[in-house]
């Protein structure tokens, strides 16, 4: 029998605000345990939550970007359960009336298909604290720095049918939230996390199979592997005549397997009810219009513009738009250069990307600024240096040796475009290699490159390649 996997993702994106969702404590990552916990964050008796309005614009921006409905009134509810890292004994979340509902997101897949993924809802909630199981002997430490950090939980419909599609969707959301500036996307610090709901059903069946939930997988690669494993496990179980138990599972990356965390039988009844400490969260048309006006060009629109208006290949446009900083870098370079999108794209995706990668930097930290790159590319376009030399100059710029002009000047790299010098070199190589000349003239045109190479050698690499080519072609004909 053939099986169809059905996957839905619940993504937790930490909204980048300076203070927490309901308290004034800082959200900065990495502080000493419990130094960023206000009275509310440790649930002191008598403390009360007050919503941080800064989360609203971020949630609205996300909602608008996925073409969703923004609730004019959304309601905070309490999700009740006992756990030591949950100081109040309940998590403040949104349940029946989330701030964002009924959105959709176009996901471009590697094979060129576009998936439209339905986003059922995105709601605001507070994060829990952290249990430190290894910090103390025979005791668990509790760090409430994370408690109350604002999260946007983005819930997709169960419409994804492979681990690859699920990860493509996850990456698209990751790009979008960073693009919008609503989340820093840092998966290592837990700012962007994902739970996957996975089920399988016989191909052609419309009813959903029993699902399991894989909790908190924190890298794209592990999400893909965890879902793949889970699909295989479920198919294997069903083919062996077993049934799938609805449960929460964890992924063990080292062993590449998922295992039971808790089954539905001992799952909590969360006893959701509207939080009486918090009046409904009101969003006005004015709030929404202000966010809409400040919304950046979205990644998909920009990708389309790069293809349609700038004539870039789909692949280049997609890669450039993988994050906003890269796309912005490209645009600054291109406008400083005054056009020549393809050259800029090649350099941004080629030399620059390689250099960033090697230095383990992101584009915002690039050692060569976009205007500086544009000045280098301008020298190439003018014919002052060749593309090949430009790569050396770029490496020197990256190493901090100064800007393109200074390096070209200091190293004497200006391209030889003087016809006399080029012709002298051409004459010399024609004279030096009579056998090859005869061969060429007998029809072995591949030898043109041999002569170009020899002439370039005499010119110490600084000959203008186009001119040299043309001169040789002419000279070899005779």
């Amino acid at each position, binding site marked *: 029998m053939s099986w169809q996997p059905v996957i839905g993702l619940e993504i937790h994106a930490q909204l980048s605000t300076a203070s927490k969702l309901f308290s004034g404590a800082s959200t900065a990552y990495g502080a000493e345990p419990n130094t960023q916990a206000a009275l509310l964050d440790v649930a002191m008796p*008598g403390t009360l939550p007050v919503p941080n309005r800064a989360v609203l614009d971020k949630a609205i921006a996300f909602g608008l970007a996925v073409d969703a409905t923004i609730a004019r009134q959304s309601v905070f509810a309490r999700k009740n359960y006992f756990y030591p890292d949950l100081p109040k004994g309940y998590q403040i979340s949104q349940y029946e009336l989330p701030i964002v509902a009924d959105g959709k997101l176009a996901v471009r897949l590697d094979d060129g298909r576009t998936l439209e993924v339905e986003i059922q809802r995105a709601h605001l909630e507070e994060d829990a604290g952290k249990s430190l199981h290894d910090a103390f002997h025979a005791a668990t430490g509790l760090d409430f720095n994370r408690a109350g950090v604002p999260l946007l939980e983005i819930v997709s419909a169960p419409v994804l049918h492979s681990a690859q599609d699920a990860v493509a969707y996850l990456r698209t959301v990751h790009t979008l939230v960073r693009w919008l500036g609503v989340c820093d996307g840092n998966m290592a610090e837990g700012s962007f996390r994902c739970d996957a709901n996975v089920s399988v059903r016989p191909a052609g069946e419309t009813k959903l199979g029993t699902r399991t939930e894989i909790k908190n997988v924190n890298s794209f690669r592990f999400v893909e592997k965890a879902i793949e494993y889970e699909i295989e496990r479920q198919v294997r179980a069903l083919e062996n005549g077993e049934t799938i138990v609805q449960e929460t599972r964890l992924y063990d990356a080292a062993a590449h397997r998922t295992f039971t965390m808790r089954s539905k039988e001992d799952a909590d009844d969360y006893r959701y009810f509207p939080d009486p400490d918090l009046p409904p969260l009101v969003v006005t048309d004015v709030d929404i219009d202000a966010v809409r006006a400040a919304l950046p060009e979205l990644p998909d629109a920009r990708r389309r513009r790069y293809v349609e208006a700038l004539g870039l290949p789909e692949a280049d446009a997609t890669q450039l738009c993988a994050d906003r900083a890269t796309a912005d870098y490209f645009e600054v370079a291109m406008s400083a250069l005054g056009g020549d999108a393809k050259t800029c794209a090649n350099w941004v995706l080629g030399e620059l990307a390689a250099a960033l990668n090697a230095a383990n930097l992101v584009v915002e930290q690039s050692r060569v600024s976009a205007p500086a790159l544009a000045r280098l590319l301008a020298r190439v376009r003018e014919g002052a240096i060749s593309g090949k030399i430009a790569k050396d100059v770029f490496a020197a710029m990256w190493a901090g040796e100064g800007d393109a002009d200074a390096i070209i000047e200091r190293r004497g790299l200006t391209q030889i475009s003087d016809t006399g010098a080029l012709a002298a070199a051409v004459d010399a190589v024609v004279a030096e290699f009579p056998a090859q000349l005869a061969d060429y003239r007998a029809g072995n045109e591949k030898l043109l490159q041999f002569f170009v190479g020899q002439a370039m050698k005499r010119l110490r690499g600084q000959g203008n390649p186009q001119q040299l080519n043309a001169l040789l072609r002419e000279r070899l004909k005779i």
Partner: protein
Amino acid sequence: MASSIAQLAQDLRARKISAAELAQAALARAGARSELNAFITLDEATALVAAQRADAALATANAPALAGIPFAHKDIFCTNGIRTTCASRMLENFVPPYDAGVVERLRDVHAVSIGKTNMDEFAMGSSNENSHFGAVKNPWDATRVPGGSSGGSAAAVAAGIVPFATGTDTGGSVRQPAAFCGITGLKPTYGRVSRWGMIAYASSLDCAGVLARSAQDCMYALSAMAGHDPRDATSVARGLDNYDAALSSKLSNMKIGVAREYFGAGVDAGVAAAVRDALAQYERLGATLVDISLPNAHLAIPAYYVIAPAEASSNLARYDGVRYGHRCADPQTLEDLYTRSRGEGFGAEVRRRILVGTYALSAGYYDAYYLRAQRARRVIANDFSEAFKQVDLIAGPTAPTVAFKLGEKTADPLAMYAADVNTVAVNLAGLPAISIPAGFSDGLPVGLQLIAPAFAEGPLLAAAHQFQLATDWHTRSPGA
């Protein structure tokens, strides 16, 4: 201390007495009346420091009205550095690191707190018998309850220990003990006084209030306590009325609705008679009595005893033995830590309400209980809105009986709950109400409840004050 706040304020300014002397006298009376068990904590050191500061403020011009006036806080308001127990074993040794909004405001006007009063555990009760620190006795009859949950505050005021005390009112917890102890108890509009630092029982109903010997004294306390607090999202951003100026409003054009449902089967004849006499007095003062109906009044008790426990079950989840409060000895597992810490830390009534509330919110029961109770809440509020189209205030007995005997209802929680019949609807609708002494039945005080539209504390206090100018029920005090 039989003097009014106005009289004390005058004496303080005339240097007839100092704030320090007043505080010491109040502490001495509290000590002398320790058999009432009205206080959980007396804090002489803090009181005397505050009194010194008050005396310094009184030496300047424009000292606030309450400067140097001794009072007591219900032990539900967090006080920085002073233990705050909520009358629970769970918080027996809990010392808050911060002050409640109400505590700050009263300190800012240099009122002098002498200590923390006894109460029903976590404000759950109508008799003050549910206290880890023991029951409070009614100053009028030591074999009777003072009412609850603010029973310690009511007894302290009625016994003349302090001229006023703070309380909280979730279903009648200020008004009913005021009625049982023959004093005046004001529950303001929900949102008028900050809940920051007031330990939560049922958040949508909890309201800080004041117990004093007169409406005028309540007015002074309310003027200091009320106002917007950005730390409480349910606090209302609305300017304060001048309650002092409002007191002098006459009753000539006032229409008082007499709700027939408030004189139903459970009301003692003696209580009903005293209240009817008081209403006749209102007519003599120029008010018009209008018979009205609050047809959904019977829904108030069932709705309240679903909503309040539901919220409580969640509000009290934080007491888990992990960060503060009672922790069981030598927990073996997490489950064991929770079960024993909570089982040992909470008293029977608190456990009962947590269980009821947990049940009401559970999957499969939520619609039948919690949602239905919320619908009932809306129709109850709507009854009041309709009534206030015809009348300015609504009147009735605060409680259906006078103070009952200690132990009389402890075995029957439902009988205890039924005693809240006339008070809980007011909390469900979020309205302001006051209980004022209206006479006696069998030698025990009877309270008249007046209910006003939201934020009409001014007219409400005026109606009470005008009555007290014409009567002397509020000046009667029990012998020591």
